[in-house]
């Protein structure tokens, strides 16, 4: 689709969250890694919204409470203490995390605040045991440069990461407490990006600066991006949880397309003359029409005592099937609301019927009972009566919103770059002071000390790598932009393997594995270091680095185990000498050639047999010896 995003008034803002690689969590002395161990303790909590001074309760918060959520927390003593369990007041704000955030502020040209105030942000979906997330602004302002444009930043904050959701079933949700409290740095831009590409580039630039602190975690879940996207006449949509940088432009494209589609639907509804008053919540019980239905959804609902409720939507025929994006129709938007508010599995709409086991006869009977004209549509929900009613009520609300265009809402990003309804936009964020933690003064002396040890800029870093390890600029820049810089330096400094090989392995090879959807994010630095050690010690050939890493990631095994599983091991000198001998004997004609040419051809032949099992240098050495032997002996005879 050819879209002029600037013409459409596209505005995008980004919030980047990145886990910090600190020794301790933000408010206690627990380590900052996750665990795979069994939970030792499971406890239950219920969170209720707190009333403001006006007895107002945050809409989003109240909504969660009304769902009657039972929250189970899994805790184990290695990664969680009383603080995460909300059984002990928070300790002091982790000074290491503050230092990292201040260094990030310098790198992003932001201005540190003079005194940090930790706040509580109300979140009662259970992701935080307190019912709020602790968060604080560390610096204001700042900027990044993107394609010659300066993108202003709003703030750099520190906050605690949320608990890890393990399972959600109905009104029961299970969280693991290991992740809760890991420091996150958050960088928020102004809504200043005007194209999908610009948004992605800004995220890249910010990510580079954060990596520049040398203290951010890498790997799955260590980085999360939220987007705010709007177009002229559209609405501000918050998209949560974009995990990959490469997905940002796609999410923006899809969201702009969705908003344009909704505006088109609005126009269409206006031209059809639909008025809000015509949209009435008047569900009709049509269970009797579906007693003998072949639809599994309906049969299952009826078997467990449910009903089939229908709702007429005047003048909407054909619109429910309108595409708003990949796998997204207007009907999907209605279904998402029905699921969220009614807790139902989904809905049927007449634009997609007959189908899903519902026969043409049933559709005709339905239309007759509801008295639908050909211009009208209807939706069906099969579930317990009160859930079905709530679901249909939400559908009416959503269609009314369509008359206004794009409703403001919070959406969640999917791995394919599409978004789906997540929840209503929270009211003005409920932030109030965390009274358990006194304000923290940021002294000029502390800033001076940090400035003095400021990590080099990405450009300086690349230059330093080129100089020290004699690698080319492209590799150096790729390393700086990768999460493997410190690993590279460690391996390259040992001097056992050529730095260029290590650099290529950690950039291009890893990228090609990522493209193959190999879960390289799951590999720790220790595992990768182990793989390089095998190569450095001559136990594995360079040529099998890719296979080795792939095996480690796919099977979740150590480098040694991966090597064994691959069934390749290095040939012993005797074995290798035997192969070389054989080739030389079988090709006496080569002895007549010039020594260098003979060597080249023999090398090719030997290597085709021993690739991955022998170091080419060793092979060349052996061949040279052999050839010299041969030459001297033939001269003697």
């Amino acid at each position, binding site marked *: 689709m050819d879209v002029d995003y600037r013409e459409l008034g596209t505005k995008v803002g980004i919030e980047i969250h990145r886990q910090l690689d600190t020794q301790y969590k933000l408010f206690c002395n627990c380590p900052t890694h996750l665990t795979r161990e069994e939970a030792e303790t499971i406890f239950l909590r219920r969170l209720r919204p707190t009333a403001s001074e006006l007895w107002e309760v945050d809409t989003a918060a109240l909504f969660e409470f009304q769902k009657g959520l039972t929250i189970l927390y899994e805790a184990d003593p290695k990664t969680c203490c009383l603080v995460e369990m909300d059984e002990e007041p928070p300790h002091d704000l982790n000074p290491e995390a503050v230092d990292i955030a201040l260094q990030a502020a310098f790198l992003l040209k932001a201005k540190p605040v003079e005194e940090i105030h930790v706040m509580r942000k109300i979140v009662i979906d259970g992701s935080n045991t307190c019912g709020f997330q602790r968060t604080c602004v560390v610096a204001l302002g700042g900027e990044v440069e993107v394609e010659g444009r300066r993108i202003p930043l709003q703030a750099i904050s520190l906050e605690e990461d949320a608990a890890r959701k393990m399972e959600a079933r109905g009104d029961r949700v299970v969280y693991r407490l290991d992740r809760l409290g890991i420091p996150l740095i958050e960088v928020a831009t102004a809504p200043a990006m005007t194209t999908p590409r610009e948004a992605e580039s800004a995220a890249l630039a910010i990510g580079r600066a954060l990596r520049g602190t040398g203290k951010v975690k890498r790997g799955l879940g260590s980085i999360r991006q939220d987007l705010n996207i709007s177009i002229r006449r559209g609405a501000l949509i918050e998209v949560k949880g974009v995990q990959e940088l490469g997905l940002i432009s796609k999410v923006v494209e899809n969201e702009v397309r969705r908003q344009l589609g909704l505006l088109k639907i609005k126009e269409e509804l206006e031209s059809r003359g639909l008025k809000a008053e015509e949209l009435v919540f008047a569900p009709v019980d049509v269970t009797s029409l579906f007693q003998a239905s072949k639809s599994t959804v309906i049969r299952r609902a009826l078997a467990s005592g449910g009903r089939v409720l229908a709702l007429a939507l005047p003048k909407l025929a054909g619109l429910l099937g309108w595409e708003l994006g990949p796998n997204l129709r207007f009907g999907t938007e209605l279904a998402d609301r029905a699921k969220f508010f009614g807790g139902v599995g989904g809905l049927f709409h007449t634009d997609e019927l007959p189908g899903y086991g519902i026969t043409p006869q049933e559709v005709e009977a339905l239309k007759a009972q509801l008295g639908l004209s050909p211009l009208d549509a209807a939706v069906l929900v099969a579930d317990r009566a009160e859930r079905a009613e709530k679901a249909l009520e939400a559908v009416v609300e959503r269609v009314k919103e369509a008359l206004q265009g794009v409703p403001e809402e919070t959406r969640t990003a999917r791995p394919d770059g599409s978004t789906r309804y997540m929840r209503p936009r929270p009211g003005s964020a409920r*932030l109030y002071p965390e009274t358990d933690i006194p304000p923290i003064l940021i002294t000029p002396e502390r800033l001076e000390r940090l400035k003095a040890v400021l990590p080099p800029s990405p450009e300086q870093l690349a230059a330093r790598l080129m100089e020290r390890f004699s690698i080319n600029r492209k590799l150096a820049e790729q390393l700086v932009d990768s999460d493997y810089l410190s690993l590279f330096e460690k391996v390259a400094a040992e001097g056992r393997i050529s730095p260029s090989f290590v650099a290529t392995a950690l950039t291009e090879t890893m990228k090609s594995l990522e493209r193959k959807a190999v879960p390289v994010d799951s590999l720790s630095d220790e595992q990768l270091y182990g793989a390089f050690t095998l190569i450095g010690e001559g136990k594995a050939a360079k040529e099998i680095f890719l296979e080795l890493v792939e095996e480690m990631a796919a099977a979740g095994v150590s480098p040694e185990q991966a090597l064994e599983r691959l069934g390749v091991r290095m040939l012993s000198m005797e074995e290798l000498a035997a192969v070389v001998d054989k080739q030389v004997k079988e090709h006496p004609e080569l002895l007549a050639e010039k020594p260098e040419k003979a060597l080249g051809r023999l090398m090719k032949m030997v290597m085709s047999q021993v690739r991955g099992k022998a170091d080419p240098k060793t092979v060349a050495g052996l061949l040279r010896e052999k050839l010299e032997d041969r030459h001297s002996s033939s001269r003697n005879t």
Partner: protein
Amino acid sequence: MEKEEISGYRHQALDALRKAGARVGDKVKVEREGEAVEGILMPRTQLGDPNYLVLKLASGYNIGVKVNGRAKVEVVESKARPPGAPPFAPPEEKPDLPLVEVIGTGGTIVSRVEYRTGAVYPALSTEDLYRAVPEISSIARVRARVLFSLLSENVYPPHWEKMAEAVAEALEEGAAGVIVAHGTDTMGYTAAALSFALQDLPAPVILVGSQRSSDRPSSDAALNLMAAVRAAAYGPFAEVGVAMHEWVSDEAVVIHRGTKVRKCHTSRRDAFKTVNASPLARVSDGKLTMLASEGFRPRNPTGKVRVKPRFDPKVALVKFHPGFNPEVIDWYVDRKYRGIILEGTGLGHVARLCYSHLRRALDEGLFVGMTSQCLWGEVRMTVYEVGRELSALGVVPLGDMLPETALVKAMWAFGQVSEKEEVQRLMLTNLAGELSSRILL
């Protein structure tokens, strides 16, 4: 009034605010060296550095902004008056439900947050309770009154007297049970005090508090309150109890006997433990189950409470420890204290060098009772020579009575009778479950 409006500010910050005529809640702009920050002025804690203003930014975050001599502060927008509270329709009361009176003394069992300033207000009207925990309206008819608004470390014996009288009054007016909302730090002491001051109780009296303040969604207050209301309205016992979480889960609340309960953790929800006995009851899933292994005093709707509210504060709780200077005992004797409760080691011991000082105390007519700093188990002063010697001096072993309960009981006993022998007799009589006849595993 003006003082209130710029509360917490001192020195340069206060001067700058005065000059600008700024008050907490106003939107102000602070300009320094060509930079400006704008935000709503928040109150500042007295203990903070005096040269910083706290501003709430448009994003909702607070930051501290330094004001030096060159900073310019101006009011951009005067405090907007908060609109009145929206009308609240209290849940319909069911006339056939029992009446429970809630007496507020402090703590924040229910509170409201002023998000604008971050201030937390206790809320203790009947309406407030119904708004914050609407579930209680289906358990009982609730009436709330505020007696004090005290941090619990400021609760002293005269407050116990007022509480006892207020509870008795509520019972006489026909309450099926009474709840006392209390800060948790000294709630155990108050529970013991009411246990002795309220004799012949006809109905349950339940103290309730929260370990996580009610301004946070995870507060334990609501569940504790619901359990307290249920216990007060329907509990088959007529004793003073403390209703707090049984464990860290929001599942069960236990009712501890007022004389046997102690705060044993600084912060956990299940900080309160019954020592040397089983708790009175458990409330979970909306049901109350009795647990008291030694039996309990049954509810008696026709009975009439006798209030014995006097306490004499001239009793000391003295903890013995290695290096203890026995002149501490003399200090109390010199100041005409009437009793000393010793918190001895193990089975009830103190060092021999205390003997002469204790002898003096006893000679001067003080009551000296022995409890154990072990808390768990009873004192037994017949096993070791030290114990026997202390007994011979006249130090009275107080069984498994908790040190704090023994202190409160002695204060109460001296409030009732003046003869030391009478006090001793009361101290050794089990009046409210404070002495166990058997201690089970």
